[in-house]
């Protein structure tokens, strides 16, 4: 007889070990999956995890890790604050889109003027756009008690419609022969979020992500607000007694996560993507939820988790073209990571007991 028994206290060791175990389990079962597809499992895993970091062309892939990882980290940091406090912003994808639209909108409005003020204004606009979009579920929650999970998620689809409308209408490139999509900001120097050192992958979004990690760390460990977030998530009743204002906390957490998601969208549209297009959003807002949990809602953990997630994307594409692995297998592989994380996470609070149940 095997049964689960609640631990008297959450196991700290297991809490730290879970992400590592989840990665190992994913490698093992992912390898099995690849083997059943007729591919060499070892070669597949090596291609995904080793090739981008230390392979022949790592000089190209390492910067790509930053490009792919930065938006994930930036968004996940914001989400983690709310998740810690039990405030669930599931709509970061929408806030990411709105940030990109606001940021790009400001840039395109200035076109073709050049000037040093344009990019900072775009950054502010991007942050504002994301914040504004997150304020909708926040205000509805504090005023009318609506569920922020549903409202923020549904607003993603609204944002996607805005994105399509902008690509086809207001922001459409007038020199684009009627095709959808805006001007390419990469060709507009004042608005281009270029690599700070060319070829390094280090654009302003990467810098912002690192700053966000540090700020979140300080906030959570040193600041009163960080204490309020933690205590609200762990013991809501105690939070009330210790004078935490839940309304302000909801506004802060949703607002901050929206702001950071908006920034991520703005840095993406003005840099690596370059253009407002109908399919601009590729799911960073949703993947960031995985990253936040994979990183244990801890700033440093999120930083590592974001890079790991980026690694599986980049390595996955390499495995596709070099080994002929289907894209679906790579997606299953990434899904396994979250699955094992959540499954193993249970052992933080529970442990397995073998033997008969004793009758007390």
């Amino acid at each position: 007889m095997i049964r689960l028994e609640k631990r008297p206290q959450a196991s700290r060791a297991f809490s730290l070990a879970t992400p590592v175990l989840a990665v190992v389990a994913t490698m093992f079962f992912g390898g099995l999956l690849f083997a059943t597809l007729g591919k060499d499992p070892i070669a597949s895993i090596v291609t995904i995890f080793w090739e981008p970091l230390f392979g022949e062309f790592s000089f190209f892939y390492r910067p790509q890790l930053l490009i792919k990882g930065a938006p994930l980290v930036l968004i996940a940091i914001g989400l983690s604050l709310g998740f810690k406090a039990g405030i669930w912003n599931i709509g970061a994808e929408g806030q990411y889109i709105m940030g990109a639209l606001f940021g790009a909108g400001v840039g395109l409005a200035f076109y073709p003027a050049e000037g040093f003020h344009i990019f900072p204004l775009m950054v502010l606009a991007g942050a504002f756009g994301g914040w504004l979009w997150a304020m909708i579920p926040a205000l509805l929650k504090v005023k009318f008690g609506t569920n922020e999970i549903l409202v923020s998620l549904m607003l993603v689809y609204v944002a996607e419609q805005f994105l399509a409308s902008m690509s086809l209408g207001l922001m459409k490139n007038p020199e684009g022969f009627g095709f959808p999509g805006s001007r390419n900001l990469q060709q507009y120097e004042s608005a281009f979020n270029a690599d700070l050192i060319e070829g390094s992958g280090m654009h302003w979004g990467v810098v912002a992500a690192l700053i966000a990690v540090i700020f979140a760390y300080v906030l959570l460990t040193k600041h009163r607000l960080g204490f309020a977030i933690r205590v609200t998530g762990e013991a809501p009743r105690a939070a009330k007694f210790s004078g935490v204002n839940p309304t302000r906390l909801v506004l802060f957490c949703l607002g901050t996560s929206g702001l950071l998601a908006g920034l991520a969208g703005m840095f993406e549209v003005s840099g690596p993507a370059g253009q407002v297009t109908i399919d601009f959003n590729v799911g960073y807002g949703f993947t960031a939820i995985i990253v936040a949990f994979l990183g244990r809602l801890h700033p440093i953990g999120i930083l590592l988790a974001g890079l790991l997630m980026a690694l599986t994307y980049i390595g996955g594409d390499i495995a596709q073209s070099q080994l002929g692995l289907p894209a679906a297998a790579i997606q299953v592989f990434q899904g396994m990571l979250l699955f094992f994380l959540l499954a193993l996470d249970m052992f933080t609070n529970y442990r397995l007991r073998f033997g008969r149940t004793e009758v007390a």
Partner: protein
Amino acid sequence: MKFTKLLTGAVLALGLATTAMAQDKTKVGFVFVGPVGDGGWTYEHNKGRLAVEEHFGDKVETVFVESVAEGPDSERVMTQMALNGADLIFTTSFGYMDPTINVAKKFPNVKFEHATGYKQAENVATYSARFYEGRAIQGHIAGKMTKSNIIGYIGSYPIPEVIRGINAAFIHARKANPDVQFKIVWAYTWFDPAKEADAAKVLIEQGADVVLQHTDSTAPQAAAQEAGNVVTFGQASDMGQYAPFPRVSSIIDDWAPYYIARTQAVMDGTWTSGNTWDGIGAGMVGIGKISDAVPADVKAEALLLKASLADGTYHAFTGPLNKQDGTPFLAEGEVADDGTLAGMNFYVEGIEGDIPQ
């Protein structure tokens, strides 16, 4: 700056080195926007890839990555293919345009082929198919087959290619049946079976007994089959599993001849940049078997139309035609030029509703 130069230099050197190494075998890369099993757009491009493999055998190696998001992800995938020694890379979605140009700049010795775009370079050619020729034939059959005189149309995105298809279908449906009305639903996706099925159901509920689609899944076919008396056409691929009814014919993209010819050109060293826009005549657009659900006389007319489009004696956009707002578009006997067709952003007279902005 020095570091920059060093890096670009390294990329170039490696690009050169790897291409040089792969001289014996020509390596052809394909970047796909959807899964190869989508049954439509990507499926046909992948068939083209397989045809290249079959045609050249040991002399070529093909690689592909599927479901690649447009934007930075596609740029990374292309770079990766070039680094790994690809000689020729086909990028098969409109949204890959700027990324293709960016990567092509870094790898001057690798040839790139971008589908459905308008930006070319020394080593970037563009290609597309005149799907609208197939639409003309569909429109004719649809006009003859409808009993409710309402034809439903599932649009993907309101871009010139799709609008061109709607116009071509409408012009020929009206010619076949002056009472025909078009109802257009925009799905804002190229491939989303759930959304496409919903769109088809909405159109059928509004009385459409013919549903045309510019999206890639077979979901509208399934919805029509369920409804029972609704006619459909295969899109991008034959979708023959729904023949003879509801699918009565189809437009098939046949990229194989082009892919083989371009690969051959790279092998021979005769590859040059350019813009290819081929239709039924060159075999890039195929018309799937017209099923027996279509009356024999209608089928004969459709085949006649196909023959005249193929040999160039008839153009799908031949005047007199007016724009939706009543202003003249083409005079009697005048045909539309390619520039106008490429950027078409208006409906022809008779279509109701606005193109979404």
